[in-house]
């Protein structure tokens, strides 16, 4: 098996001991996202946001806690392979969490006695992967360059800045939300998915090259 693929397995194994610790924060975040809006669709972006909150913090935090950068090097995992593998793990987490949000949406609808339109749900999932994925790709190079502790501020600041920007945009353009939902309804799901993939591919390549360059020069 390819080293990068095996690295993803190792990366996921490093999350396993902390899975139980993640359950309570995950439930709090999901409930907090659904309660104010009382919309079952809120489950989808909220689950996707978990990838940006949990992913880098736990993965890079484990590297620091266990001096795993040294482990990777002594196991013969080249720095380039580590960077690519970590990107793959992060993307996998994002897709898995978004899928979990999608699966939880009908359950939430049942609890809230609401109807769901699967086209909107699927469009939201694609949009969440595109937007949250882009967010991850912006902040990952900082984690590779600085490690979890020093990059934590950036990890919090980037999503916070985006939330503030969205809130400000909501104030400035009150009908934007309705317009966006209407646009999503009227747009082909295939085009949305293609756009999300294209955005992620371009940003992902730039981000990955930058991260590899930053990590290559770092003393472990």
């Amino acid at each position, binding site marked *: 098996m390819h080293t990068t693929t095996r690295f993803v397995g190792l990366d996921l194994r490093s999350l396993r001991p902390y899975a139980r610790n993640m359950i309570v924060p995950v439930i709090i975040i999901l409930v907090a996202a659904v309660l104010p809006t009382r919309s079952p669709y809120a489950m989808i972006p909220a689950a996707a946001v978990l990838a940006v909150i949990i992913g880098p913090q736990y993965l890079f935090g484990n590297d620091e806690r266990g001096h795993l950068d040294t482990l990777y090097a002594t196991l*013969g995992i080249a720095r380039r392979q580590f960077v690519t593998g970590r990107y793959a793990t992060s993307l996998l987490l994002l897709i898995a969490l978004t899928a979990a949000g999608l699966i939880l949406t009908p359950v939430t609808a049942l609890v809230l006695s609401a109807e769901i339109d699967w086209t909107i749900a699927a469009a939201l999932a694609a949009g969440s992967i595109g937007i949250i994925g882009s967010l991850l790709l912006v902040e990952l190079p900082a984690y590779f360059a600085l490690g979890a502790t020093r990059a934590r501020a950036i990890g919090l600041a980037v999503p916070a800045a985006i939330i503030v920007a969205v809130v400000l945009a909501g104030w400035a353009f009150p009908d934007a939300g309705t317009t966006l939902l209407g646009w999503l309804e009227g747009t082909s799901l295939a085009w949305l998915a293609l756009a999300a993939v294209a955005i992620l591919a371009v940003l992902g390549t730039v981000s990955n090259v930058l991260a590899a360059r930053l990590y290559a020069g770092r003393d472990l």
Partner: protein
Amino acid sequence: MNTMGYVLEAVGLVKHRGDFTLGPLDLHIPRGFVTGMVGANGSGKTTTLRTLLGLIRADAGSITIPPMGQIGVAFDQPFLLPDWRIRDAAAAYADFRPGWDQDWFDRLCRRFDLRADARVKELSRGEGNKLMIALAMGNHPELLILDEPTSGLDPAARADLVDLLREHMRREEASLLFSTHITSDLEHFADYLVFIDAGRIVYSGTLDDLVQDFAYIQGALEDLTPTNTPLIRGLRRGQGSFDGIIRTADSAVFGSGVQIEAPTIEQIIVHHQRRNDEEH
């Protein structure tokens, strides 16, 4: 010895870290032998090992080293997730290390009294060292690089580890580079020695040559002259007497009144690292 006789070579190795500068170092580690690296805390032993392994990026110089899959590495601190069990760590090594021998690893764990279900964070410092050494040796690597492998071990465990490393060395072509500040480890089984002080190599060669290159000197204070005093390393003045280390080649500069004898490794290292009395 020709190039084929070295398992690891570094030429003109330099690394700047804040106020500390390592090198320039030229290092040649013979294949099939045990090389001990000694030096005081902060002398650059760990930085040298980490730079050789590519964990620290050298500012200059070249390194020739076997592929990482053929090098077993253990530092004085485990580099494993504290919540992993020993079997999780072994599974990670088994996935990546070519020629991983699970039976051999299990035997090493039994020998070191390590349970497969023990968590890394539950291990004592000595047990952590033993685990890392067992993992490092788990695929019968061509080269073992161990940083302070005996620190944190009680005397019986230290003797057992030395026996284990001797057994490992009986394999043809196996080589070992280890750092230590316990000179008895060197006397027990090192063939070659690299002595580092303030980021520079003071001595690199066989243990026998080291003892021949340096001499331990004792004498009366009146035997010290402005000419011979600067030649003494780690000069210690007592009530009417002095002692220190000199280069054997400088013996003739001292009068017949002084006692010059073959030094122990510990005497050489301790006196070399100690600044002369007047420098304090």
